[in-house]
């Protein structure tokens, strides 16, 4: 029974395409995140939502648009994909408040060709 699940696990697409990654958590958490892990394994936060409300929006190109239809889901839509978008994207969730554990999904490896 997966706690944070992402689909798809792998995504290969051409430059210029639009794609979406879906994330669902069954932990009952109010807060969800998107992190990007680059080819050097560096992890950086992109967005955070608390109960469907955007609370963190790092300096991410506006081609990236998160959408949270409810507090258990946080999807990531990417327009006009570029080669530099190739990375592993992780969804995560946590309880709200300070110092709470973040649970990560298995990641989506996006390859733009």
């Amino acid at each position, binding site marked *: 029974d997966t706690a944070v699940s992402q689909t798809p696990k792998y995504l290969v697409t051409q430059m210029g395409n639009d794609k979406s990654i879906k994330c669902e958590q069954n932990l009952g958490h109010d807060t969800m995140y998107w992190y990007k892990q680059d080819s050097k394994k560096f*992890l950086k*936060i992109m967005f*955070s939502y608390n109960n469907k409300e955007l*609370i963190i929006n790092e300096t991410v190109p506006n081609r990236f648009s998160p959408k949270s239809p409810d507090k258990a889901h946080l999807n990531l839509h990417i327009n006009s994909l570029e080669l530099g978008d190739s990375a592993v994207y992780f969804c995560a969730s946590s309880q709200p408040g300070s*110092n709470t*554990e973040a*649970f990560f999904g298995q990641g989506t490896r996006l390859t733009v060709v």
Partner: protein
Amino acid sequence: QQQVKQSPQSLIVQKGGIPIINCAYENTAFDYFPWYQQFPGKGPALLIAIRPDVSEKKEGRFTISFNKSAKQFSLHIMDSQPGDSATYFCAASRGATNKLIFGTGTLLAVQP
């Protein structure tokens, strides 16, 4: 100010050895310092975490040492095993946003 510096980049130890991974931060507003373990093809998973009012925390074979005045913290893995081979990330966050600032990662290989 938002960075967390991590070293070494990679580490090889023999089974039973004690690998030590070090991290340093600048922002004194950070109030939560977790360590995450990541296996290939998997997402990071919380290993152990510490708050700045504590100088050491042990959970099983894993120990965090925290030096608030030096703004440094480290992970020690006692009696390391081949199954501990993974990438380890230190991180820091502050306040209610739980925005994790990650170090650059350490690839640990424990040889049998």
